[in-house]
């Protein structure tokens, strides 16, 4: 029996159209727009101004606190302006526009493909390098990695879990990275283990990626303390709490962080970025992005410089299909629909999914038939139908008692509701309101 998490879950069609497409470098764009807020926490503050010459890897916006990160230039060229433009949230956000000229990297960055295995830094030195390199969780959560590596006082990590689950349909960037950069990921894991002072790391991979499971299991033999577990295909296994539960059997208590059960979770893509940052002096300014969709003529995995407009990726994947109705940044379950192709790729962009017109419409909302499907699929053990009603009726104290704040916004409830009820829409609204109420109490 394959392991998986204990409550709920759904199995949307996987549609991994680009699973066998090698990662290709996307041609350099002519201009980039690099937002200064690409992570959870305080936006970085720009340190360049119009007319400045920048090189690839140079800091262009500085971290403005502990929960914040540096932003580096992904291209070389001249700063055109520091201004606002729409990011994937659809809102105008501050960022730096750069006109690309050549491809000149900072000298200290090692651009060779050679694997650098050895390191003799201590834990805090590694954390410092990770922090300077602007690394955030690349699975989509974009939480600054260095913050996770410094557990709160009195807490100690026991195990590092690596998320190689990629449970979102369509997305294949982590899968490709595991196949093509297995050793680099392993070294990255060693670095993370060292910084956390743990001697055990487990990589969780869903069983629909047997090649990755096999390869990493093979590689793990050469790396002390690292092992691989195959997991049953079940969404949302990539959720932190679900992954911890699937691998260790432990449940992170309501409202607590993973460290409460001794676990720290990191994405395999993040481990790769850590490798590059520490062993190659390369800050985080590019990432792998899957471009996919049923109408896309060349579903692909691209290595993309941060700040590149979505339109460039779509062009490279064969152009925008005529009947495109919706463009998703991320996967279909948790990704964001973006209003236009001008939106730039950021550190958290795992994929661009082009949905056809007929896939983009929501079904007609009917009465709740009390079928309890939403209850049985909720991985957090909540009652989505009830939380929706409480949200609709603005009954927030009860919503809090019914643990609306535990909702991880995985969308399994809305996905499964036969009456097409917009459950998560109202639950999000309720969460927002209850969150405000909780903060105002403090």
């Amino acid at each position, binding site marked *: 029996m394959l392991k998986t998490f204990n409550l709920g879950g759904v199995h949307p069609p996987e549609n991994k159209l680009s699973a066998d497409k090698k990662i290709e470098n996307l041609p350099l764009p002519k201009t980039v727009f690099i937002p200064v807020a690409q992570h959870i926490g305080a936006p970085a503050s720009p340190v360049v101004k119009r007319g400045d010459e920048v090189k690839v890897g140079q800091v262009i916006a500085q971290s403005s606190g502990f929960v914040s990160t540096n932003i580096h230039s992904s291209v070389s060229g001249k700063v055109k302006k520091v201004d606002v433009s729409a990011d994937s949230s659809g809102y105008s956000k501050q960022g730096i526009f750069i006109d690309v000229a050549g491809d000149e990297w900072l000298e200290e960055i090692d651009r060779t493909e050679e694997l650098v295995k050895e390191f003799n830094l201590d834990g805090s030195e590694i954390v410092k390098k990770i922090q300077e390199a602007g690394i955030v969780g690349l699975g989509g959560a974009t939480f600054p990695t260095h913050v996770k590596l410094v557990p709160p006082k009195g807490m100690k990590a026991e195990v590092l879990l690596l998320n190689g689950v990629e449970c979102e349909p369509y997305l294949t960037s982590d899968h490709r990275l595991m196949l093509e950069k297995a050793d680099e990921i392993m070294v990255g894991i060693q670095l993370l283990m060292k910084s956390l002072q743990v001697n055990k790391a487990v990589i969780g991979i869903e069983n629909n990626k047997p090649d990755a499971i096999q390869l990493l299991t093979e590689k793990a033999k050469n790396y002390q303390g690292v092992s691989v577990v195959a997991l049953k295909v079940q969404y949302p296994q990539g959720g932190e709490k679900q992954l911890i539960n699937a691998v260790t059997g432990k449940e992170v208590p309501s409202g607590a962080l993973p460290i409460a059960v001794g676990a720290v979770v990191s994405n395999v893509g993040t481990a790769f970025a850590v490798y590059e940052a520490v062993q190659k002096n390369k800050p985080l300014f590019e990432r792998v992005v899957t471009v996919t969709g049923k109408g896309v003529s060349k579903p692909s995995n691209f290595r993309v410089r941060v700040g590149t407009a979505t339109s460039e990726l779509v062009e490279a994947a064969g152009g925008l299909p005529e009947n495109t109705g919706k463009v998703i940044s991320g996967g279909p379950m948790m990704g964001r629909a973006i209003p236009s192709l001008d939106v730039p790729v950021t550190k958290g962009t795992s994929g661009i999914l082009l949905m056809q017109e007929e896939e983009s419409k929501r*079904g007609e909302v*009917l009465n709740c038939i009390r079928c309890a499907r939403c209850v049985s699929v909720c991985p957090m053990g909540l009652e989505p139908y009830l939380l929706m009603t409480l949200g609709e009726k603005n009954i927030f104290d009860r919503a809090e008692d019914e643990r609306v704040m535990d909702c991880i916004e995985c969308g399994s409830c809305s996905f499964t509701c036969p009456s097409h009820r917009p459950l998560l829409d109202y639950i999000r609204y309720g969460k927002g309101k209850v969150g405000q109420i909780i903060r105002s109490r403090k």
Partner: protein
Amino acid sequence: MKNIFTVAPSPHVHSNDSTQKIMYRVVYAMLPLLAWSVFVFGLDALRVTLIAVVASLAFEYLIQKFLLKVKPTITDGSALITGILLSFNVPSNLPWWIIIIGALAAIGIAKLSFGGLGGNIFNPALVGRVFLLISFPVQMTSWPVNIKSGIDAVTAATPLGIIKESTSIADALNSLPSITDMLIGNTGGSLGEISAILIILGGLYMLWKKVITWHIPVAVIATVAIIASIFWLINPDVYINPAYQVLSGGLMLGAVFMATDMVTSPMTPKGQIIFGVGIGLITISIRMFGAYPEGISFAILIMNAFTPLINNYVKPKRFGGK
């Protein structure tokens, strides 16, 4: 390049399951029972079902369109189910106008006055049945002769009626059909309640299609079986063999098709077990100590009333403990 696309919050995909598909799966599960009832009771059975279905759909349409002035929902399959279930719960020789009154009670009173599909507290078909049982007790309990079976040609009573009216168990056992006949459905009774095997088959189909879960049917049947066994073991001269209790009357039909109605039953597995045990207890109490030979309809309706309460207190297992 400027493009404006649809922007909506996640998730952006759907399971493609629909309320209508779920309802039709229930209908498919009932079709073998319908066929069997026609085989056993003749075309009269089909007549009853057709009248009940047409009347249910018509009332749903007319009331929604002209009285409530909302978009009629007759295509969602739920009124169809109510019609079929109502006909399953009545004798095949019931006059047409009584069936229509039953459909009006089911659709008009039990369903639409509570807000339509999903809003109702009580199972509509059962409300229709109980309404008829109280208003037309004679017609509702005069059973037609089973045209198929030679053994049954002499008896027009249901197994439960026989038990209730017999002076002793030995006497009852003489006139009762065999267990095999009851499993297959070679007895008298309402349209849909006679064949235990076909009911179980329909239940398995619904389990497979994830329309129902096992909790309610198993809880109802196990409760009745256990209590009946206890009494039977204590005094087999007064209390009937538990197999008769389980296989007779509407118990199987009620446990599999009516107690499982998702709208009127609890949401969580634990709640469903409480619900099922409650139905079993009330059913057997009515059968043993009450005035009616059959208690499952009342039992389900009573537990329907407790469903909101059960939902309120029996919560699913939360991730991350208390």
